[in-house]
């Protein structure tokens, strides 16, 4: 894995050194309101990204770069390509350079204590984004990210209303990568709301690995075994999109014969929602850029900020998707 990522980087460097980096052209500052209201302009902020493993992550990177341009921040951006050692090395470099704030999305949950201590000793505040670490909370200022449990609860709340008049609901679940935090928490969130509702019957629950191909494969298996599925709960859009293909191949109409609720709200998912093939999407936003620099400016101004900042996230039904689609960035 480690080898693959570094080789990927190497190949990228060799082959098309001149190619524009992804997202470098998307930094159109949309408003200057932010820069006037904060004293963060000109501050040096180091951001150590996990890598570029998914479309969600690319959108996350783009958002941070765009927000940096908007706030007039001098952003030092590094990407660890999924390698914790590399990420720690870039955080250490930030410390040596004496940046004003360090922010990063930890590759894994543990092993950051030493480098966080170093940052603290150097008096550089640290902000975590998207993923948490298992370390002493006094070592970082705040953690900005989604509440996966809440997302599962929102999806379940929609289902509860949608099927309020039905006597029984046969549901199948396309789980995320087994053991991953979003998969675990989105299941917990769903169960928090509907766990005790006996009319919601889970026929089957299987991992689709968060991929379109996985979602399609698992849904094909479910459809072959259960002729009477009413509802699909997919832990992300991609698996839901795969399920749509399987449902269509089986001669049923996704969104009507079988209703689908997913989480993420990436562009492809929103398009399917607008086209009526998905019924509801709970947003898991990668657009953390603005919140990150807001938090950074508060920290630099010496203000207290909450230890946990939850990403501003919406929910979309089919009509809202149609309205939101033209401005969708990712």
């Amino acid at each position: 894995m480690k080898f693959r990522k570094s080789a990927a980087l190497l190949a990228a460097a060799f082959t098309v050194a001149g190619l524009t980096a992804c997202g470098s052209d998307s930094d159109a500052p949309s408003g200057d309101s932010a820069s006037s209201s904060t004293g963060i302009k000109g501050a040096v902020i180091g951001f150590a990204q996990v890598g570029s493993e998914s479309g969600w992550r690319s959108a996350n990177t783009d958002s941070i770069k765009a927000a940096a341009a908007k706030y007039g921040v001098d952003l030092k951006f590094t990407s660890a390509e999924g390698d914790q050692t590399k990420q720690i090395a870039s955080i250490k470099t930030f410390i040596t350079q004496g940046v004003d704030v360090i922010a990063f999305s930890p590759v894994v949950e543990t092993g950051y204590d030493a480098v966080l201590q170093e940052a603290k000793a150097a008096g550089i505040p640290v902000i975590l984004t998207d993923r948490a670490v298992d370390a002493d909370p006094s070592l970082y200022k705040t953690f900005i990210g989604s509440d996966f449990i809440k997302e599962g609860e929102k999806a379940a709340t929609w289902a509860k209303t949608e099927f309020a008049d039905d006597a029984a609901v046969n549901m199948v679940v396309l789980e995320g990568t087994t053991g991953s935090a979003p998969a675990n928490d989105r299941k917990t969130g769903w169960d928090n709301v509907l766990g005790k509702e006996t009319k919601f019957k889970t026929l089957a629950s299987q991992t689709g690995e968060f991929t379109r191909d996985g979602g399609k494969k698992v849904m094909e298996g479910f459809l072959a075994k259960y002729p009477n599925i009413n509802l699909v709960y997919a832990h992300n859009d991609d698996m839901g999109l795969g399920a749509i293909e399987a449902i269509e191949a089986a001669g049923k109409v996704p969104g009507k014969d079988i209703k689908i609720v997913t989480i993420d709200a990436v562009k492809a998912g929103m398009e399917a929602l607008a086209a009526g093939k998905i019924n509801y999407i709970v947003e898991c936003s990668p657009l953390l850029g603005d919140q990150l620099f807001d938090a950074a400016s508060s920290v630099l101004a010496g203000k207290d900020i909450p230890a946990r900042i939850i990403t501003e996230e919406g929910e979309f039904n089919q009509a809202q998707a149609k309205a939101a689609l033209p401005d969708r960035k990712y």
Partner: protein
Amino acid sequence: MSKLTSQRLVWPVAVLVALLVANLMANHSFLSITLQDGNLFGPLVDILRRAAPIVLVALGMSLVIATRGIDLSVGAVAAISGSWASMHIVSSSDRTSVGVVLVAVVVALVMAVVAGLFNGLLVSVLGIQPIVATLVLMTAGRGLAQVITNEKILYPDNTPGYKLIGGGYLIGVPFSILVAGAIFALTAALTRQTALGTLIESVGVNPEASRLAGIRATRIILVVYVFSGFCAGLAGLMLTSNSTSADPNSIGLFIELDAILAVVIGGTSLTGGRFSLWGTLIGAFIIETMNSFVVIAISPRSTDVFKAGVVVVVCLLQSPKARRWFGGVVRRPTGRRTPPPTVSPTAPDTAPLSVPAISVPALDGDHTQDLETRTS
């Protein structure tokens, strides 16, 4: 010869049948095949369709392994070809145009062939060990795929011509099954109806002796890697077409392991010198039938354990030593003479050891001789 072949395949076939029965028990409509909008539809059709890319990659892998090589780069090559084709379609102005799809497919396959040629040159001309030589592309290839897609996941949708390759139908049959079937028939004809198969095997037994006997070993090795690259490229197109998405990090991820597993389950020895295309085909079906069973009957948390269990059973069944040992255990209660006590303590140790030697045949006289020649 055909008798020997059938004996060699009897265990993989038994496992395949057992998995089919298990599927039937988990899902009573497992065997039903219906017409859906004029197309064949049913769990068995799904299994065949999903097995198509594995069959393709495993066919190439069979020939490579027969020359005593291995191709670890197939997954990355699939990623390169799938990514390029998807990128071409996504960035074209008219996605429905047949010309766009043809260019995408042809160029992607040419890239795959070039990748195979690169592997082949490293192995045959430069004499680098296959596992090392193909590791280069296995790692760098995905990087290249990321560069091609600009590190984004692409969705080549609304392109009927491309959808056909992995998810479409021709005269009611999934097109990918037809393609994989055609490539299988072609490979079988070329290797078994001509001397090519024997030449490949002889290179695997002893490249130097083959060269001295007048066989152009270098060229044959080059050809099998190019073929493997081509098959991987085609599989990459199928995978991205079937899921209408091209994620350079996940296209064909670990397909090299599936392919090697299919080849080994099918009775082709990793030590080279022989191969069984039918065995490979059955091996690929075993993998996909197992995947289909896992989806409907095994909890996600125990999936890997179940798969490992099946693989261990298949491998043990193919090991004559392990079979003999199990036979002894089964016979014991019938009152027959128990094996000497020295056998029992050693047997558990020898059984796992015999796994890599799965297909070193006790049955096949002339090849046993080959093995001896080689080791001496």
